[in-house]
């Protein structure tokens, strides 16, 4: 194994030999000594390791998945029968707003960040991301923002304007509580997290690739993540502007959405959807990346048309900027705008269709293994295609004006987001669990998990197509008993929601029994799936420094090409090495003197200062100044602290290299 050369204080310094004069921590750069090799919870809280940060992103996102799921269950219970009495109209408004906000911003986006953080450096053969401390900052800022948004439940009720929070409907006059303020500032904070994370990951993808890995040798998951990060860099500032205008209108009396003053209600809609449409690709492309990894492995074939899949991902990213107004067909944009956006929306179906065809052809003629990860990937192809087809009906503007604000829309976006984004994430859980935790999730529970989720989602969201086309309006908080159709299909939807919840419960049970089990069979072998990409060329879980020796890349699917080669006599593909042999060779060439970035307090300090500013905006303007001061001080401390701990940061100071040499000589 490689030796991580960090100055250790336990190098035996014989007493009285006169340890060399060193800098004391007081003279060290920074304000107080940094955490060095912390233990226990401090190891996690102050870490800058992309793998630990990835795991924490995943845990927090999953907690919010449960929160958002419970909100959804309350919605379905309210609609289970006519004249539902579970929620009042006000509570119902808050419930669907917070359900969507939680699922979009606090579950799918951070869960994609979890995968991206953990696997992008591993897939490109790097030891960490480009800016490890900014990575930690992104995590804690997201956590701070997520908690901040949800605090509104305890401080006067959640936001109630729908997840797109149309102004003027969300201004003080129509939503007098603090819910929208918490929502706006909370999303502002998570936006900062997304922006810094995006810059970090783009620089990582562009600059930190292992030798030999050109852009078109990058694993497809990393490709999709890179496209998503570009979308984030350019989409987040637009929602930032919109949220500022809303906050300033509500807090300081800005006139932006005051129609009496001549304001245009379409301003918010345009700003929101210029962000909002790229956002839907931000949600779904990481999952596309995951299934593009899973399908080839379990079909034992390379991804069909790798370059096409990569480029169509980028094309979706580009065209995704030109379709936002299809969310606004019913707002009276005028025939030319409607025509242009209608055409663009139909066009974006092309690169998406390219992907569906490529995935299908990847499986065509392959030796399929129906593991749970594979089932979820196939589930994505099927369910996303259904959602995509109803999407094309929205692109046809005359049909869309009939569907706007009905359950047909609700059905559509749940098929693409639940059947697309979330199925992809679950595929990723099962595929990469052995990599992250060194244990294989139980396949039997996994299959129960998959089938309950598939049946559940189709029962829940399928009937919404029907009631939607029959005219059931979205955001309707109860209905009359005379509406026989609505009664039947809404009851089915509610049953489906419980089946879905049962499926997710199976996943939780699966995780618990996998980690409780003493059966040696749960321990993952080195290469459990006969995988293809670089992240499998290291132990499960990987060591802190990821790779003992940074691999030199010659091929797309480098790991596969190290294991298999074409036998020129028989023209058949033969195994030439096992994963264990490849690992052993790496260890033999292990690099010494690997210096990893050291833990730091500063990202946490800066992150925690942001909600203070948020409280200031809502309750007392003095707190804004306090929070801003903490932010600035935190940034100062941060900028004066080198990313790798210097020897004088250790307490007592670590001996210098020369001293160690002298002593060990």
């Amino acid at each position, binding site marked *: 194994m490689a030796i991580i050369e960090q100055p250790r204080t336990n190098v035996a310094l014989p007493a009285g030999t006169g340890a060399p004069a060193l800098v004391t921590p007081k003279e060290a750069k920074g304000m107080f000594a940094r955490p060095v090799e912390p233990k226990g919870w401090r190891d996690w809280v102050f870490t800058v390791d992309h793998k630990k940060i990835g795991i924490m992103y995943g845990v927090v996102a999953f907690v919010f998945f449960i929160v958002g799921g419970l909100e959804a269950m309350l919605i379905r219970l309210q609609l289970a029968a006519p004249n539902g009495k579970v929620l009042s109209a006000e509570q119902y408004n808050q419930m669907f707003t917070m359900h969507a906000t939680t699922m979009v911003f606090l579950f799918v986006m951070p869960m994609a960040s979890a995968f991206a953080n953990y696997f992008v450096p591993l897939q490109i053969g*790097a030891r960490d991301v*480009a*800016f490890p401390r900014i990575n930690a900052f992104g995590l804690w800022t997201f956590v701070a923002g997520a908690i901040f948004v949800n605090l509104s439940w305890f401080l006067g009720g959640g936001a109630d304007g729908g997840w797109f929070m149309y102004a003027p409907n969300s201004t003080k006059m129509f939503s007098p509580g603090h819910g929208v303020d918490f929502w706006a500032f909370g999303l502002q904070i998570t936006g900062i997290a997304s922006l810094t994370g995006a810059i970090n990951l783009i620089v990582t993808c562009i600059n930190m690739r292992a030798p030999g890995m050109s852009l078109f040798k990058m694993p497809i998951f990393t490709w999709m993540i890179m496209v998503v990060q570009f979308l984030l860099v*350019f989409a987040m500032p637009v929602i930032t502007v919109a949220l500022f205008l809303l906050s300033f209108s509500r807090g300081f009396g*800005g006139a*932006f959405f005051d129609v009496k*003053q001549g304001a245009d209600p379409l301003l918010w809609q345009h700003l929101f959807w210029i962000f909002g449409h790229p956002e839907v690709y931000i949600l779904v492309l990481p999952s596309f990346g995951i299934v593009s990894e899973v399908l080839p492995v379990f079909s034992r074939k390379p991804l069909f048309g790798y370059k096409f899949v990569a480029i169509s991902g980028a094309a979706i990213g580009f065209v995704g900027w030109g379709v936002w107004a299809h969310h606004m067909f019913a707002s009276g944009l005028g025939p030319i705008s409607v025509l242009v956006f209608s055409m663009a929306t139909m066009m974006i179906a092309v690169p998406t269709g390219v992907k569906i065809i490529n995935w299908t052809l990847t499986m065509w003629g392959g030796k399929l293994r129906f593991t749970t990860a594979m089932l979820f990937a196939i589930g994505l192809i099927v369910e996303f295609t259904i959602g995509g087809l109803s999407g094309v009906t929205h692109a046809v503007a005359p049909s869309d004006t009939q569907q706007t604000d009905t359950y047909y829309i609700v059905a559509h976006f749940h098929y693409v987001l639940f059947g697309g984004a979330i199925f992809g994430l679950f595929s990723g859980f099962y595929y990469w669990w052995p990599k992250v935790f060194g244990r294989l999730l139980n396949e039997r529970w996994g299959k129960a998990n998959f089938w309950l989720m598939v049946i559940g989602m189709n029962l829940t969201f399928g009937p919404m197509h029907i009631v939607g086309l029959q005219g059931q309006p979205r955001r309707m908080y109860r209905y009359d008993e005379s509406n026989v159709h609505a009664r039947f299909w809404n009851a089915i939807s509610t049953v489906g929601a419980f089946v879905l919840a049962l499926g997710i419960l199976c996943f939780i049970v699966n995780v618990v029994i996998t980690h409780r089990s003493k059966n040696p069979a749960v321990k993952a072998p080195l290469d459990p799936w006969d995988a293809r990409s670089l992240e499998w060329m290291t132990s499960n879980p990987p060591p802190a420094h990821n790779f003992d020796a940074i691999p030199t890349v010659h091929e797309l699917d480098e790991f596969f090409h190290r294991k298999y080669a074409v036998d020129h006599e028989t023209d058949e593909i033969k195994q030439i090495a096992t994963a264990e042999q490849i690992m052993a060779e790496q260890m033999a060439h292990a690099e010494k003197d690997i210096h990893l970035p050291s833990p730091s307090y500063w990202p946490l300090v800066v992150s925690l200062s942001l909600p203070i500013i948020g409280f200031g905006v809502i309750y007392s303007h003095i707190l804004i100044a306090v929070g801003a001061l903490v932010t600035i001080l935190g940034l100062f401390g941060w900028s004066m602290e080198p990313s790798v701990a210097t020897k004088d940061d250790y307490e007592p100071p670590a001996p210098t290299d020369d001293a160690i040499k002298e002593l060990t000589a």
Partner: protein
Amino acid sequence: MSTAAVAEHGTSHDDHGGGHGHTSTGLSNNKLAMWLFLGSECLLFGGLISTYMLYRGRHVKGPGPDQVFSIPYTSVSSFVLLMSSLTMVLAVAEAQKRNIDKAKLWMTVTAVLGATFVGGQVFEFTEFYRKGLGYTTSLFGSSFYTLTGFHGVHVTVGIIMLMATVGMLKSNKVPGDKAEVIELVGLYWHFVDIVWILIFTLVYLIPA
């Protein structure tokens, strides 16, 4: 013991000389990140400027632009800000020639010119307020103060960055490549200046 292993793969961001030549593309991580950030900022100001342009001439009460703007006054303060870009260029040039002392001097001059601009803006705002243009008065008031206010905050952050860099250079606390740190501050500063050229043209010069 060398620290080369990680620097070679550019792991840590302010590592050992900024990571020049050790990255896949040869570009420095820090500079790439700054360009991405500025790209993002373009959309931020794009949104704010669009809001202002959408509401141009749509205010129903209070003074309009032609009643409050004093073009000669704002031209002078714009000139001051543009000159600060020149002094910033001089600072970067000196830093690249390793004349850190001179670079510090030019950065201080840049900060002073920037502060003059911000001071001018504060004075201008009070003047407008006296003429009856409050933040809540009209669409013009809200969108004008928000746009120029955001720009002013950006200049202020730039001044803090400049002075912090000067201070850290003085106490020798800048990790990594000093010239590159100064260049990065310079990139931000020029960006903020370019945004002002747009704002000055679109908001002040084009008659309402």
